């Protein structure tokens, strides 16, 4: 049987409630990795919103970027490759009092995990998903990712990528996401806004972040993006218009938009799931006190 120490239920005194900060684990990313900007931005966004650490859960898959939860002081679930979103959904539905943020890479989210990506968005689950899109598989030492550009030569594509890259923003628009943004880890301040607003947003918020891999992607570098990105906010873009958002999503070349592409309001999954109206599932009473009444149907 389990140790007795383990079985003693206990009241939780919510004494001091520090907000999310750095954890005792130092990031293991390569010096200069784009992901440093993203973890900083998430930390600042959570600080800005003053959400206590113990009410935040960071969920990730596998990849360099997916180590992120270890570097902040919140709860975290560092699962397997590509399954960030179903785990995050399960957490939200079990306790929609928590702030749940999915984090991970482009391979994790748009390669192996793209099916969940599409389905979570159509559900409008109220969570935030931040992808560190470096257009490469970092942790496995440099193969093509679903967002690698045509012609990119990598370990798995020594003669160049021959598949059209996935456009995460277009895919999000097509899948019914209610908050669709793109950031750049070279512009942390802007990124903090996108993430903080995403967390505040009621519904699924997607923030794709250009987060250069300085080790394996010699094409989509900080410089590459610095020369190309422009802000939708300063370009008069109307984020409430789905057709305009689509047009912007298709832009790729000398000018690449970052910022908020689209935002709309739609009831969240949690709002539509009536069982949750009685409060977070984790706090609702569980079990049948008396199976009697329900057994009548089997007579």
């Amino acid at each position, binding site marked *: *049987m*389990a*140790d007795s*120490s*383990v*079985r*003693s*239920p*206990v009241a*939780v*005194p*919510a*004494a001091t409630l520090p907000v999310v900060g750095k954890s005792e*684990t130092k990031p*293991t990313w390569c010096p200069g990795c784009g992901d440093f900007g993203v973890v900083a931005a998430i930390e600042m966004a959570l600080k800005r919103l003053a959400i206590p650490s*113990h*009410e935040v*859960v960071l969920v990730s898959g596998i990849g360099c970027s997916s*180590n992120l939860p*270890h570097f902040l*002081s*919140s709860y*975290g*679930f*560092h*699962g*397997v490759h590509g*399954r960030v979103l*179903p*785990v995050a*959904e*399960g*957490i*939200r*539905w*079990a*306790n929609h*009092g*928590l702030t749940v943020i999915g984090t991970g890479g482009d391979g994790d989210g748009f390669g192996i995990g793209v*099916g*969940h990506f599409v389905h979570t968005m159509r559900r409008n689950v109220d969570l935030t998903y931040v992808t560190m899109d470096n257009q490469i598989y970092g942790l496995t030492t440099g193969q093509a990712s679903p967002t690698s550009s045509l012609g990119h030569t990598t370990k798995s594509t020594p003669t160049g990528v021959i598949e059209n890259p996935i456009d995460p923003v277009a895919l999000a628009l097509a899948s019914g996401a209610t908050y669709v943004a793109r950031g750049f880890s070279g512009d942390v301040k802007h990124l903090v806004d996108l993430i903080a607003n995403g967390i505040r947003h009621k519904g699924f918020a997607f923030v794709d972040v250009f987060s250069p891999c300085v080790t394996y992607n010699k094409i989509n570098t900080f410089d590459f993006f610095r020369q190309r990105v422009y802000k939708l906010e300063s370009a008069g873009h109307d984020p409430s218009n789905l057709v305009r958002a689509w047009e912007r999503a298709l832009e790729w070349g000398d000018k690449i938009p970052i910022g908020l592409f689209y935002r709309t309001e739609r009831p969240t999954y949690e709002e539509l*799931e*009536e*069982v949750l109206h*009685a409060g977070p*599932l*984790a706090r*609702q*009473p*569980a*079990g*049948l*006190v*008396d*199976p*009697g009444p*329900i*057994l009548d149907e*089997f*007579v």
Partner: protein
Amino acid sequence: MQELSVRVGGQAGDGIASVGEAIARSFSRMGLHVFALNAYQSVIRGGHVWFQARASPRRSYSQGDAADVLYALDKATVEIHAAQLRPGAVVVHDPEKFAVAPSELPAGVTPLAVPTLEIARKYTSQSILQNAGGVGAVAFLAGIPLDVLHQVLVDSFGKKKGEVVDWNVGASTDGYKFAEGHASPNARVLTRQGPAKLLLTGNQAIALGAAAAGCKFLAQYPMTPASTIMHWMAAHARTLGVVVKQAEDELAAIHMAIGASFAGVRSMTATSGGGFSLMVEALGMAGMTETPLVVVESQRSGPSTGLPTKTEQGDLNLMLGAGQGEFPRAILAPSHPADAYAATIDAFRLAEDWQTPILLASDFHLSENFATVDREELQAPPPPTSLFTVAPNGGDYRRYQNTPSGVSPRAIPGQAGLQFIAGSDEHDERGHLISDVKAGIPLWISERQRMMDKRMRKLEGLAGAVPAPVLEGPPDAPVTFVTWGSTIGAVRDAIAELAEQGRPANLLRFPAVYPLDVARVRPLLAGARRTILVEANYSGQFGRLLRAETGFAIGDRLLKYDGEPFSPHEIVARALEAPSDGRQ
């Protein structure tokens, strides 16, 4: 054994299951025990389906071997099922649809032509009443009182009463009277035996057991024969306060359940072998992150898509091997709805106590067939204790603390001061990764080993915590059947039959097939005079597991992998045969 069986056959879409259920429920309301088999094909219309309700005063554990009343909705039914009718049986059919000559039936079996369509036309020109007359005739032959049948029919329409209900009552009365005028009740008819029993499928029992155990979240993707767990739970979701999520696939389903469990609710997923194949990676993640999880694996005939609506116990190797690397798990294998209810409650308790995935092995035969259960067999378990098991102890909280049992104090997101990362990589007691900058460094090499030992140690505890193997029947019988899961049913019935023939046999059954407490199992096997392994698979998977664990090679094997459940007769026959050469 005293018993009477009614079989109904026809094409998919003919309403066979409703007819069958009405008869079966009439029996259970008479206080009789019922085992009801629902046999269908992987096609929505056409083909051939049948339903058999076997009633008896004592509990019978299988569909039995023969029927006493056959209600044939098409001619094919007569051709397929006539051979399994007992002397004295009657075949009900509508002469307007097809004729049945006595010569087409075995000796002692007679046809009864009932004008069901004609009766139906008395009430309506719609086609909804086609079977009511037949059901009435069957009730007469099977000794079901008309009032019992009527109440069942009325209840089956639920709240939407109206003229259709009246028509059904009328037409079934007509059919009953017609039969009364042209035939006599079967000689085996049974009388009322006291209060109504409950009639439910294995899947209903599992869903009910989960609710009783405090399951608040079920994520599932439809797959026969597991789908009806979701259907039942979805239908009761608001009453029970359970969130039921149909996921986009089984990968998502199990990950959702793991996420929910991590966040503090008892969670479950259910599927069949094909879907379970997609859950293999996540199962190991639950093991590694030490997240409680209950997974129902309702087996069907494989391999691959196989026979989606037929039974088999062919996924044991899969359940044993699921997940790369090693982590603790247990596999419970109930045999009957009453048992399934209790086993599900056990599964939740074990998952939470041991913080690891627990598999509940079912199969088509248990999941989709009906059996009677007494109310007392479905007790509410003690209410689950709080999941919040840990006091905040400042910076020293170790989620994966290395304890003697292997079980560590568990915090739930939302608890202040206890934040940790549940990681699928190897980690230390605090949950910090060992896989990156620590891997391969001497200090951490041994920490990795300690963490493996900590987790795997749970297996020893689990072996004692799961339900123990049971030797049923005369301990010194010359024959010992060894089996597990739904196959136990037919073996029990076979043993009763052998006993009637003065041939004692007993049964060594395993309510939990893994992990085994070898010290407890070995003497049970060693004490047997002749062992016969009975399993619904090709290679005797459980027999192989037993041998791997105990070294004991079971002498004889009766294996079946044609999609059909065992019938008691074939088990009896094997017991009466000379033992084989003992080669496994």
